[in-house]
């Protein structure tokens, strides 16, 4: 089957149907789509990043320890998400800046559960540092937004070279910083 539409291709890939060119989108790719398109391109190529970078280490640590007692990890092919006891999908963010990327990552999980597994769930965005939790529900509007993002991601990762580096406020804490700017 050849599906021209990225969303169809993604769904076919996720459902294990035969596809000429499988198309995968991970949660982190959705996040990067909103943070930095260049970073998204690097991620899609599995480009090795500097694990010693302090920010990366910090981000990982918060994620690993927050709510570790009451959540369960679920691996669903191209995505891997965390469920709370009550069945809601939780996404933990180390800081409350850049809320949209985290929110869209979570929306993507909800969309994926809905479209691939036919499971309807609600989500919660958690900021452990600020002891804040925000509900995220998959509205029709969010569904549209997710599908538009999938199209946008497809366009970027299909390019043979990444979008050029542009200085952004979070470049300083990005794992690709030295790679981009050397």
């Amino acid at each position, binding site marked *: 089957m050849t599906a021209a539409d990225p969303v169809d291709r993604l769904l076919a890939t996720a459902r294990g149907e035969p596809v000429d060119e499988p198309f995968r989108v991970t949660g982190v790719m959705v996040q990067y789509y909103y943070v930095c398109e260049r970073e998204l391109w690097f991620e899609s*190529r599995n*480009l090795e990043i500097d694990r010693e970078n302090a920010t990366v280490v910090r981000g990982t640590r918060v994620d690993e320890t927050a709510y570790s007692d009451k959540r369960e990890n679920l691996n669903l092919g191209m995505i891997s998400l965390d469920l709370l006891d009550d069945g809601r999908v939780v996404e933990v963010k180390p800081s409350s800046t850049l809320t949209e990327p985290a929110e869209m990552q979570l929306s993507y999980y909800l969309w994926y559960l809905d479209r691939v597994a036919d499971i309807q769930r609600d989500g919660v965005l958690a900021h452990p540092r600020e002891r804040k939790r925000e509900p995220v529900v998959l509205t029709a509007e969010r569904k549209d937004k997710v599908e538009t993002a999938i199209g946008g991601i497809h366009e970027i990762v299909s390019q043979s*070279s*990444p979008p050029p580096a542009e200085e952004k406020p979070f470049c300083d804490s990005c794992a690709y910083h030295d790679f981009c700017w*050397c």
Partner: protein
Amino acid sequence: MDRNYHVFSDGRLERSDDTLRLVPDDGGEKQYIPIENAEAFFLHGQIDFNTRLMSFLNDRTVALHVFGWEDYYSGSVMPKRGQTSGKTVVNQVRAYEDSQHRRQLAAAIVRGSIHNMRTNVVYYNGRDHDLDDIIEELEAAAARVDKELPVDELLGTEATARKAYYRSFNEILPSEFQLSQREYNPPPNEINSLISFGNSLVYANCVSAIRATALDPTISYLHEPGERRYSLSLDLADLFKPVLADRVLFRLVNRNQISDTDFETELGSCLLNESGRKTYTKAFEETLERTVEHPTLNRKVSYQYLMRLEAYKLKKHLLTGEEYDPFQRWW
């Protein structure tokens, strides 16, 4: 993660709980060497080690660079890389096989290398030395570097420039330390042996820098792959020799910190002895730790990190098609 440790004595290097222990053959005191922050161990003496040590170093991603007979670089034991990237290697090979692309990279390396030699000569020109003619020769060589030239001609241009460059050593160094002629294997005089030793340290550090990327160290552009084991290191080392090895040499010799008592001269050979090697590596390691303001990273970086950045730059070029600008000393 960037400290180099040099071991000069003969003995046994072993794991001892979470550190390394050096047990010297001469019955001297055992030394404990912290492994945190270690990038690589440089073994200059006769050292025994076992597989237990190897897996420990592998876990901590620390490399061993081995210097064998007469202190020539003889090889490295590299930790398994955390990540390998098939895509990177495929692109590396593609660039090699596309002769246009290979020439372009080889030309860039030669351009950077000549620039860095020239910077040294310019630095000493006018400080009681008249090196104008050598600068002219280097500039003439640089003008001939063109990405349309076949790789062997690029190598030839590099060699011509290097010959002119080495003539400046006779001017820069005191009369008892004259190079007269650069020869290899075995180095017949003091300066030759200092150059060889310094170059092999630069080379080994480039091996470490390349390991930090997913680049394959055996696929190279200026030098022929497989000419030696890590030929990509030879490519990168050419850029850094003038900045690291040669500057250390000039400094040590001109300040009399190295003298003829630091060498062992035998029929047809002249080599640094242990005290000479210690003096040299100390100054070399200090140089690696020096920092310089980086024009685009907006922070200070060490000379050692410049080699890592060079590997990043090459990798970036190969994966993104963005231009590769060779390292050229800017300060």
